[in-house]
């Protein structure tokens, strides 16, 4: 192994790059993906002119098991799935499902109407509707020619 010159600035730059990558990409940063939380539920996010639609797969969870918060443009969905294994079970043959806590955080790319965010839970699918704030909606102006 040969000796290499240590450039203290290099590590710093790569951190900065990482940070930029986080902030630049619409909706993509899962800022806290890498922390101690056990599993990441799958999510689809789409956008139309009025707002954003998020669909997260949370089979086996109920409304009260999930917490959604919006702080400083960061939307966090977190909760916990408890193991269903009971004392009366004599054997466990297959465990593919994930249990424990989860948390996913998304940066909202534009201003939204935070008081109009609406969430529903059906068949293990969490659906969140986030309407965009008026200022960011493209406005159509009709010009009348007299």
């Amino acid at each position: 192994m040969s000796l290499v010159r240590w450039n203290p600035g290099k590590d710093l730059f790569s951190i900065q790059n990482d940070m930029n990558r986080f902030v630049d990409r619409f909706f993509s940063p899962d800022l806290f993906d890498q922390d101690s939380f056990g599993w990441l539920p799958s999510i689809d996010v789409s956008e139309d002119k009025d707002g954003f639609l998020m669909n997260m797969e949370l089979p086996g969870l109920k409304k009260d098991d999930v917490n959604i918060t919006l702080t400083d443009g960061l939307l966090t969905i977190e909760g916990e799935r408890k193991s269903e294994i009971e004392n009366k079970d004599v054997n466990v043959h297959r465990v593919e499902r994930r249990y424990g806590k989860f948390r996913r955080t998304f940066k909202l790319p534009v201003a939204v109407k935070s008081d109009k965010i609406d969430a529903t839970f059906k068949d293990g699918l969490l659906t969140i509707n986030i309407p965009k704030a008026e200022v960011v909606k493209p406005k159509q102006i009709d010009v009348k020619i007299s």
Partner: protein
Amino acid sequence: MKLVHFYPNSLNGLTKEIDSVFNSFFDESTRVNTERKSDHNWQPRVDVRETEDAFLLVAELPGISKDDLKIEFEDSVLRISGERKSNSEDENINVLRSERVFGKFNRSFKVNTRVNADKIEAGYENGLLTITLPKSEEVKPKSIKVKVGK
């Protein structure tokens, strides 16, 4: 080929055989799966537990309509199949993140113990499909009470 010692009294082989019997109570039936894999692109996560009376299979199937699920039990093979339909093909929608998988799925499990096929039950709640396979009477553990005379 080399000659190997033969240990007639070795319990190793027997232990392995017993283990394999127990492990294969609820095997994924690979034969059936590979046959039909080509047109199926995802597999739901499945847990299998066993109580004294029954086997319990729980599959994660969020966002699926009950009518799109099919459960079959034939020749000791339990087969779950179905389809998760994508709901949006709207052109005015901009997809920002797409992690969920849509389309057909199919999983088969070989149930290597006797179950009461007529009494298999299935329920779908909160995106979970739960299938209960009651054991046949002859494989259930029996407890015998010993009465002590006065």
